[in-house]
């Protein structure tokens, strides 16, 4: 049986307590096919980042079901979820979030090491070469430019060969030229490896490069426009 890469049904989530409680996601249903690139757009606070977090198993919904590659995330305990994430899901953040005390090579090798891979460093080295940082292996994040840091973050996300790559505003902290180069890589590498891409962005031009774009409004998936609609 072939499972979709992502399947979400009836997902609801509220955060905060009492008067401060905010309803963030409302009855979200979403299916993403294997190898598909999906752009998620919407205004600030519309729930798009939260949708990604739920997809990555970093947040549990109040109600509803989430399946990644046919694995029900709700059935996994916290530790199993962490290991599942380490092997199947790559995440790229807007603020890169590299570990400052580790070199570029060590940052990229970290998820592989956590998964117990014996060839972590070799694979990390190869991945960094792929993103054009073969000569910056032993630099610490503070010694790298913003674009370089985001390339390291991308290499880290891709290194374990995840089946799902999640990116939250990956170019939000970069200038236009650098951002474009990162995006090229982000579309190129996973596609070649058959991975699925879920990308949150404010940039409609970037969203238009996806196979499909969904729009979030007030915690709901409002529409799923066809591919070429948004430009």
């Amino acid at each position, binding site marked *: 049986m072939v499972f979709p890469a992502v399947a979400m049904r009836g997902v609801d989530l509220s*955060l*905060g307590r009492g008067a401060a409680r*905010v309803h963030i996601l409302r009855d979200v249903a979403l299916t993403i096919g294997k190898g598909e690139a999906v752009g998620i757009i919407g205004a600030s606070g519309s729930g798009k*980042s*939260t949708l*990604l*977090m739920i997809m*990555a198993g*970093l*947040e549990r919904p109040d109600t509803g079901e989430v*399946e990644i590659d*046919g*694995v*029900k995330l709700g*059935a*996994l305990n*916290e*530790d*199993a979820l*962490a*290991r*599942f*994430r*380490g*092997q199947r899901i790559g*995440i790229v*953040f*807007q*603020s890169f*979030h*590299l*570990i*400052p*005390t*580790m070199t570029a090579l*060590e940052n990229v090798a*970290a*998820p592989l*090491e*956590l*998964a*117990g891979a014996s060839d972590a460093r070799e694979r990390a080295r190869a991945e960094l070469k792929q993103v054009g940082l073969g000569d910056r292996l032993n630099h610490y994040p503070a010694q790298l430019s913003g674009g370089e840091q985001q390339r390291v973050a991308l290499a*880290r996300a891709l290194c*374990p060969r995840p089946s799902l790559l999640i990116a*939250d505003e990956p170019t939000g902290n970069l200038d236009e030229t650098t951002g474009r180069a990162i995006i090229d890589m982000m579309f190129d590498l996973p596609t070649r490896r058959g991975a699925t891409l879920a990308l949150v962005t404010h940039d409609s031009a970037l969203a238009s490069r996806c196979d499909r774009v969904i729009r979030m409004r007030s915690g709901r998936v409002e529409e799923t426009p066809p591919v070429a609609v948004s430009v």
Partner: protein
Amino acid sequence: MNAPAALTRDRGRAPTMRFALRDLRGGLAGLRIFLLCIALGVAAIVGVESLARALNDGLGREGRVVLGGDASFSLIHRRLSADEQRFLEAHGSLSTIATVRGMARVASGDAALIEIKAVEPSWPLLGAAVFAPSMSLDDALGERDGVFGAAVEEALLARLNLKLGDVIRIGEASFALRTVLVSEPDRLATGVGLGPRALISQAALDATQLVQPGSLVRWTTRVVMGGPNGAPDNSAVQALMGQAKRTFPEAGWDARSRLNVSPDFSRDLDRFAEFLTLAGLLSLVVGGVGVANAAQGFVDRKRATLAILKAIGATGSGVVALALLEFAIVALIGALAGAALGSAIPFAVDWLFGSLLPIPLAPSIAPSLIGLGLAYGLLTALAFSIAPLGRAHDVPVTTLIRDLVEERRGWPRKRYLAGAALAGAALIALAVLTSPQRSIAAMVAGATVGAFLALRLVAFGLAYLARRTPQSRFVEWRMALAAIHKPGALTPSVVLSLGLGLTALVALTLIDANMRAELHDSEPGVTPSFFFLDVRGADAGAFVDFLKRETPGVKISETPMMRGRFVQLGGRPVEKVKPSDKVAWALEGDRGVTFAEKPPEGSEIVAGEWWPSDYSGPPLVSMEEEVAEGLGLHVGDTVVVNVLGRDISAKLANLRKVNWRSFAINFVLVYSPNALQGAPYTELVSAALPSAAPDAELTLMRAVARQFPAVASVRVREAMDNIETLVAKLALAIRAATGVALTTSVLVLAGALAANRRARLADATILKILGATRGRLTMMFLIEYALLGAATAAFGVAAGTLAAYWVVERSMQFDFVFDWRAALAAAGGGLAITVGLGMIGAWRTLSQKPAAYLREL
């Protein structure tokens, strides 16, 4: 579908060490105080233990010299019998010394108590005595023109205003002071006395006529045995000891070998070291607060890193393991540094003061002590860090993408609380199980845990009160109160770290003050000013008349006195009796024994019955209740004591509760008069003078020395001064150990203030922007620190007083006196430290320009 099996297997542990080391490469920011706290505590513990071991080892290595032979047989009242002498001679060369208390008198009439040591010409068989000026023993002590020579300690020259060449009288003989006795190789074995040492020859001792039947002369014969390298091996020494015991079971001697030179000294040393170790442990526990602060700060600072690791596949317990490993590594570095420093202390003491110590030091690196120090350091680090680091488990990854994050609050997960409790229990178990006095160690551990919990309550109560105090219209007061109860306030850090240190300081200061007060507590006419030793039975009447004549109104008490050693208790040989810790002293060396028709003054019969005054049946004995209990004896048991070389078997007729503070002369053992019939004895006489004037005492002492040269006058005032000097020295060591705990307190406090500085800067900047002047901000900080310091000091004084009261009333059994000055000084110190350190931080905060801070945001 469930997760594939491979994913549920924990494969994330292997890289933990690599990750920890990588993270530590970034430096020890935020962990330095933690490292220092562990290092200081471990250094104190390893230092004390190493020093005690160096002393014990030195004693062991130099045991032969310190003892003056391979074996030593000490007798009171009598010399070796011919058989005993022959037996020992067959095993090696013999040398005998005699020690006795006496009075040194000068022509002016002045007199001083001295500890006489009479030696043979061959003395010392081992080691060397140092004289200044240097001369042979014969030149120092020999008879020249009818006058014997003496080598005396410098202290005697000072006491009697003498110089070398002057002549003194001891008993019936005259002595020329030929040289100063700087050191004796066998000083420790002969013990430290109440007066300065005077070394004379045994021929001279005979001439003094101080040696009479029943007088308190101790004869100690040392045996120097031969062997393959000039000395016998241990088994030969042990064989001699065994043989001596079997051959002369009733000798009643105090037999020691070079393998066990001074068991009481070694035991006292171990106990004292134990006390100091507990003080070191206290500093580790105080440092634990710093460890907990560091762990809290670590999780806050590393939030992003921990979240990233979780985002890329680390489990919650995995990131906690990583954090714990980093802490364990830092703790290990701190503990190793502390152990190195502690191990160096005996070497440093030997190098700096080796020549001044009466005991040879044998410093060495002791792996077992280093291991103990490391274990203490690591367990402390774990006990205090597991719970705060456990919070890393629930650091949400979503913190990486948005601020609105629901976080688990309150206590860390149960497994981490259990882990912390387990490490704490292991720490207590280690302290108790490695202690020579487990009950005391357990008590101190219990008190520390109690104080710790109480301090947490104080911190909580303080925050609660600050929250509940009605709103004041003074902004500074309001802001200061808010700073005390807001989340992340300094309150728990200040109260816990300083509170424990202050409690210990107040307790020790008050115990010290009470001991000193007790030593000087005297009531003219009731408290004895003198004890006169060696008053011959025949002279007793004349002596008492003389005292009454010289000092009208004097209160006199006289008791016959002999010395005896326990041989059998309730049918068991004394070696097989396991006394309780409290009364172990009763079986060491000899005890004073007496006989009486009526119960001694100041004692009360609590079991059995006193004998009739004309009792003539089998020997009976009365024993002090606590000692009997500690030795497991009951009324009706048989007690065998060797007196004057004769085993006296007596039935335990009754037990007495003695009020030792009644100042009446009381002995542990009191026999029915018929039990010791015919035995030569001397009287112990005490005299309570109607006036406390020192001049009256000196006049009486001179008169006694003139009229009764064989009587040794022990001035209570002087003896107490000597004891006080000793107490002061011990108190100094205790204060040094407590000082480490206080230093740690200050470190922890400084660390907490530094960690809090950034939050303070934010508050201060906003307040400045809103128009607060530096004066108002200063006042706000001042009120906050003063309140925290005052509350902590109040707790420290209260808890310290309670602890001191308990020790003084229960353990030392005298009335507790509250010393306001000591308590106020400690409280003032605590307040000053809090306000001082706080205001240093505040000054740095206030001097920063708001714009500079805002640019960094």
